[in-house]
């Protein structure tokens, strides 16, 4: 299989994730966008690992770490969403998160 295929799939997924982060208003959907970006990175790592075929499998190991990190992030992220919901009564975040407050 050409190496470029998974790379391009990953590029498309990453872009979809970026769109999700920027365009979605509900915090949980923003989280889904972030997860999509991380999944794209995982695919890249797996593809490169298969291509290099080096014995220490750096790519697959790092993807494993990424999946675990993503799980940790999502756990914390959901807790913040709940705190936000309790404090404000909504889980919608304003346009771009960074622009939210000065």
């Amino acid at each position, binding site marked *: 299989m050409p190496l470029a295929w998974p790379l391009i799939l990953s590029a498309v997924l990453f872009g979809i994730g970026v769109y999700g982060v920027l365009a979605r208003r509900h915090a949980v959907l923003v989280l889904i966008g972030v997860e999509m970006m991380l999944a794209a990175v995982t695919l890249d790592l797996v593809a490169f690992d298969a291509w290099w075929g080096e014995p220490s499998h750096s790519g697959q190991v*790092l993807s494993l770490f990424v999946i675990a990190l993503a799980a940790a992030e999502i756990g914390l992220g959901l807790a913040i969403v709940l705190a936000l919901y309790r404090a404000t009564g909504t889980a919608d975040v304003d346009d771009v998160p960074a622009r939210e407050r000065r």
Partner: protein
Amino acid sequence: MIDWSDVVAPLVVAGGGILALLLDAFGTRRSWRRSGIVSFLALVAALVVLLSPSRPDGLQQALGVLVVGGTLLVVLAAAVMEHEDSMPPGELHFLLLVSASGGLSMVLARDLATLVVSLELLSLPSIALVGLRRGDVDAARGAWTFFVVSVVSTAVTLLGIAFVYGVSGTLVYDELALRLSASRAPAEVVGAAVVLTVVGLLFKLGAVPLHLWVPGTYRGASVPVAAYLSVVSKAGAAGALVLLLPDAFGLQGESWRPVVAVAAALTLVVGNLGAWVQDDVVGLLAWSSIAQAGFVLAPMAVLTTPGVASAPIRYLAVYALANLVAFGVVGLVRRRWGGTSMAHVAGLVRVEPWTGSALVLALLTLAGFPPAVIGLVAKYVVLEPLLDPRFGTPYAWLAVVVALNVVVGLVYYLRLVAVVVGPVGPRLAGSTVSPSPPRAVVVARTAVLVPAAALVVTSVQPDLLLSWIP
């Protein structure tokens, strides 16, 4: 491959954090004393381990001491929050220490996997720390903003790392240095991979353009946590960059150097302009800490050999001391007089001569102005590599930008100094509103006066600080 003696310090810190959490959870009454003392002891133990003479690499050692020492002072300064019911002491100390152990392992990392995992260990608990003021809208918003920016920047770094792995087939710094330049992929692709990796780390440092999380997050967080973010978190990110850039990406300088230089210049200008219009002390310190990150970044633009790497770290050390003093004083004021506006510090020198003078000294250090000679020397140290003719001074323009931003910084810092030494405002004239017991105030005051004394001593004899960072 792993030198396990390196891991002792982060292990001690993390272990102390877990112990603090358990002691607090199983104690009958929630008290700062129990978890606070455990954290204090663990951090002191880690300092002892780090300072033991057997450790070889001076730069890593210095960064480690910066991270642990900074956390130690934050733990002491946080004592002032005793009896603040929305702040659970066990969780606070646990998260602080675990995050600090992340900062430590980030500095010790010799491969990209360890780097990125440590980065998350530094970030995730500090995000939780920001949101820890329970039931507070600002805290939740600050935490969310911080979270999204942090996670996205991690994703970008990971993307960069994936491509770096793709072109080189390894994640280990020493091998990267050899394999990146021998890569079969075009140089542009290698450069892009390196830049993506660096950009993610720049976000973490609070560099422009992704700096906008800083003010909201600092103001949403409690003051000691803001101090932690501005000092320890930054030290971790800057330390990782300083080790990563020359060690792993040393031969790819043409790709990342302009990025770092432009980011440094923008960070300086935007941070200073933001600070200029603030009328809240925490807001001012938040924006100015963005600008200060620019000073740390600037010399990285000419980072070639590990020898030059000392400039950002030396600056960072001075900045850390001064910023911890400033945030420590503001934390005290907020707890005792209930706010952080300019009016809350008007005439502080006359009400609290010692802490007030410490704040003045810290602000002058951040501005880089005598009598705080150490602040001036720090600016010198940052400018020096940019103007070194050995590198042909391609970044003399950056040196001019840095110099002019010293001026802008001086004006707003001095404006605050004038308020602090001016007539006593109505806020300070009133009685304190603090529920903090006197003992906690004494501890927090110590956490201010010790680094302030260090600033005085190093102003007289800057070599005490400089020679210690190789």
